[in-house]
């Protein structure tokens, strides 16, 4: 699965994208897995209320299932326009 990071999430984790092999069934489980990896992940995912997630390029939420998902992205609330 491709995992993408944008804005300060990307800066905190230090990479824009990585390929992850995971058994996580939901976004939350994936977040837990990432958090346990390294301090920079734990820091990036410290406050989920400050984060948004997209699954296969559709806005989603942390309870969402990952079955069949090819791409998950984490980022702060958007500031377009």
């Amino acid at each position, binding site marked *: 699965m491709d995992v*993408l990071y*944008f*804005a*300060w999430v*990307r800066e905190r984790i230090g990479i824009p994208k990585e390929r992850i092999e995971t058994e996580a069934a939901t976004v939350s489980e994936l977040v837990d897995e990432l958090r346990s990896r390294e301090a920079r992940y734990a820091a990036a995912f410290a406050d989920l209320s400050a984060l948004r997630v*997209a699954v296969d*390029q*559709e*806005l989603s939420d942390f309870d969402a299932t990952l079955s069949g998902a090819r791409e998950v*992205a984490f*980022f*702060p*609330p*958007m*500031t*377009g*326009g």
Partner: protein
Amino acid sequence: MRIVVQDAPFDFGEEAERFAAGRSDVGAIVTFSGIVRGDGDLDVMEIEHYPGMTEKALEQIAGEAKERWSLGDVLVIHRYGPLRPGEKIMMVATAAPHRKDAFEAAEYLMDYLKSRAPFWKKERAGEDASWVAAKDEDEAALDRW
């Protein structure tokens, strides 16, 4: 309906003219253009986006507007990359038989673009750099639709 996501500048006047030209099926054209404000000592605003998702999100938002209002046409242009104060960040345009529809649809597009299109802004002023935080009022603005 035309959706453009690009790093290059766009010509606001030319796009507005082209959007409005040769139409006699609509009576009302509304455009909105966002400009980088030169607040404080801002040097540059960097806009990051999510290629692939951005275009999809903009098409969804514009498509929704076309379902809710009687629109002859919709245009959305949004830039990414580094922009200097005074540069145009983006524009939307709506064409409708009547002004109420054109205004409401343009405001709807802007409200959703602000909070639901995957763009993020970073401001650089001298040595300082900070990500622009989403505003509660922008999230609240969605409630009226």
